């Protein structure tokens, strides 16, 4: 009797483990992962999609662009996400990973732009700065003031030490930590943009140049604030001598209390960022896994919903949340893409 009981329990246990470990569990909710920059926009679309169609509201995880693409490319099957958002373009290495794991057909959507701004309280002195001056203020090693071919540890303490036109206050900039995509873009576009033409790094190999140009000083002038951009905003309002680095949508949200620095003569406006005239602007993307279209209901409808004029048009609701929407003809092309779902080719990424 006892033996029978144990045997039954064993079978039941084994059965439940087997049931749990069946990989392809049916899923009727779209699963979206990816960039924290796209997250505020994608969540709005997802919520509206859920409330105005018969499909359930998609689930969104903010994993960062790289993390999202890694999950996205892990394979086909409902335990893997259907769509990933990115605040940069897919790398060829990521494309190869996708191909290797069977994620062959991918459609890319470029949904608009985002700018990174340097802002301060409206009561503070506004910065009107070039990217080169910005690098001199924040780089870990900068060309010596006496001999511009030699690199020294950053000697500048006040903005006015760099150029007398800049405000006479100590350099203190608060920004996102290295794990953030915003920081990656800031390092790449702003700091490297201001540094790569300096004579001191002109002869270096690409890796060495990146090492110098993208290293931020660690003597307290650059303050890392964690991923919470709201905190930076709050600190800026309290402290007049502080400058902060964050995404354009946070500036828009607090436009009555913050002002943005002019970079290379450009004020960050929606128009300047969309036209790529503002120097620290990047494009935002999302990628759709075509093998899941038809398996998980609503994926194609979501893509169409995202690029519809009511969302991304000149009067769309995404504009209200701070997305810099693409111009009309680009939007038309996106809508074609959503209905045809063309495959992304590796050549496009090179």
């Amino acid at each position: 009797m006892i033996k029978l009981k144990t045997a039954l329990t064993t079978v039941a246990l084994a059965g439940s483990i087997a049931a749990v470990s069946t990989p392809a569990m049916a899923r009727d909710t779209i699963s979206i992962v990816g960039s924290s920059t796209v997250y505020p926009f994608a969540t709005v679309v997802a919520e509206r999609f859920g409330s105005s169609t018969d499909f359930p509201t998609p689930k969104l995880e903010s994993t960062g662009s790289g993390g999202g693409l890694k999950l996205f490319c892990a394979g086909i099957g409902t335990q893997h996400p259907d769509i990933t958002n990115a605040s940069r373009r897919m790398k060829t290495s990521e494309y190869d990973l996708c191909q290797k794991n069977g994620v062959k057909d991918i459609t890319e959507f470029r949904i608009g732009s985002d700018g990174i701004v340097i802002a301060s309280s409206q009561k503070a002195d506004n910065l009107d700065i070039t990217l080169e001056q910005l690098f001199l203020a924040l780089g870990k090693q900068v060309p010596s003031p006496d001999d511009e071919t030699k690199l020294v540890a950053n000697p500048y303490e006040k903005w006015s030490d760099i150029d007398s036109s800049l405000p006479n206050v100590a350099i203190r900039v608060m920004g996102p930590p290295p794990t953030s995509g915003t920081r990656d873009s800031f390092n790449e576009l702003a700091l490297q943009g201001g540094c790569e033409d300096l004579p001191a790094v002109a002869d270096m190999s690409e890796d060495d140049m990146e090492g110098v140009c993208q290293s931020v000083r660690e003597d307290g002038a650059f303050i890392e604030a964690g991923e919470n951009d709201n905190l930076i905003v709050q600190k800026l309002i309290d402290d007049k001598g502080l400058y902060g680095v964050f995404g354009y949508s946070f500036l828009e949200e607090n436009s009555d209390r913050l002002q943005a620095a002019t970079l290379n003569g450009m004020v960050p406006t929606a128009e300047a960022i969309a036209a790529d005239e503002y120097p620290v602007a990047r494009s935002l993307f999302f990628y759709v896994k075509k093998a899941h279209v038809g398996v998980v209901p609503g994926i194609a409808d979501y893509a169409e919903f995202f690029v519809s004029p009511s969302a991304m048009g000149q009067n769309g609701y995404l504009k209200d949340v701070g997305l810099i929407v693409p111009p009309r003809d680009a939007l038309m092309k996106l809508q074609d893409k959503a209905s045809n779902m063309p495959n992304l080719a590796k050549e496009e990424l090179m």
Partner: protein
Amino acid sequence: MTDQRSQAEIVRQSLKRRYRKERRFRAYGILAIAIALSALVVLFVDIIGKGYTGFTKTTITMEVELDGEMMYLDDATDKKQIKMADFVEPLLQALIKQVPGATEENRDAVRDLLNPYASNELRDMLEQNPEWLGTTQTLTVLAHTDVDVYVKHAGDDAYSIKLSDRQQRWVDQLVEKEVVQTSFNDVFFSSGDSRDPSRAGILGAIVGSLLTMLVTLVLSFPIGVAAAIYLEEFAPQNKLTDFIEVNINNLAAVPSIIFGLLGLAVFINLFGMPRSVPVVGGLVLTLMTLPTIIISSRAAIKSVPPSIREAAEGIGASKMQVVLHHVLPLAMPGMLTGSIIGMAQALGETAPLLLIGMVAFIVDVPDGFFDSATVLPVQVFLWAGSPELAFIERASAAIMVLLAFLVSMNALAIWLRKRLERRW
């Protein structure tokens, strides 16, 4: 004699110093308590001060003429027509009538006072009551978040008011006419997450937390108690059991994020379980709470006096009978207290859930163990990082709800201990 007297003299002389020492020591203790208490007070004042406004919502109540022609709708039971119909227009027209001095020309400015989802509310109401079409109804819809912020926080430096001067005047007048009202925020307790602060609620997170906790409780309590009983009552004392014991104690001190990594590697990658579901969350939190439960259960079993066991054995009870009939009932209060405290710890945990995808934007309230869900602390984390300022008060309100849960769980633990505990 003289020697003794001088000793008493020494004692008397040192007495004052010793009393002083004692007084100083007591003062240190009081100071420590005061620091702890003031930290608590600061925390509560900050959270309650920021969050109490999260429990109110701002609504617009007005007479709405549900004109079919205006809405492009002539049959409210037709699903297709409902989908295509314009539900903004009737609300907008009704509001224009209420706003003194507003005309067709300022329609955009007036529309910005309405919640962007107010039209969906109207749609749902009409779907439920198709006979309303063509009638005039008194309806209450949510106001725009900017109106909500203005009504609650006008003049507060921490918030930015986004309404224009004209819109502010309108809202002031509407408040006077009692068209714009604030009331208890039932939306906060009856809906899931939303990107619009005035529509965001914690029901989804509460249900997610309950489902996760249920999985944790069902798994960790029996396993923990069984392990504790075996180790305490049956296991032989040897190197192996010592090793197990040391490891359980070490596990209790392992940072919780490690359990999240383990869950990701085992449950999701190896077993192929879906991401963001309460089952996986519950499994991970089970691993985390097990050591706490085992340790506290063992302590409870140890505190049962040996005389009870000996008495039971003396009248011929088997080892199993001794444990099940005598030791376990007496140790139960201690085990329950330990488990509840372990569960309270698990309820407030975010770090391991980050890795298994429970930190996600989920609007629909979960209705099963395999449905995507978040939990309360994660909801706080998500709201605290949102760009909209109105989420600050929602986050603080959610913290208050979470604290209420934790306090009631701890109170339950104390009550159980007081009620069931026996002293020898």
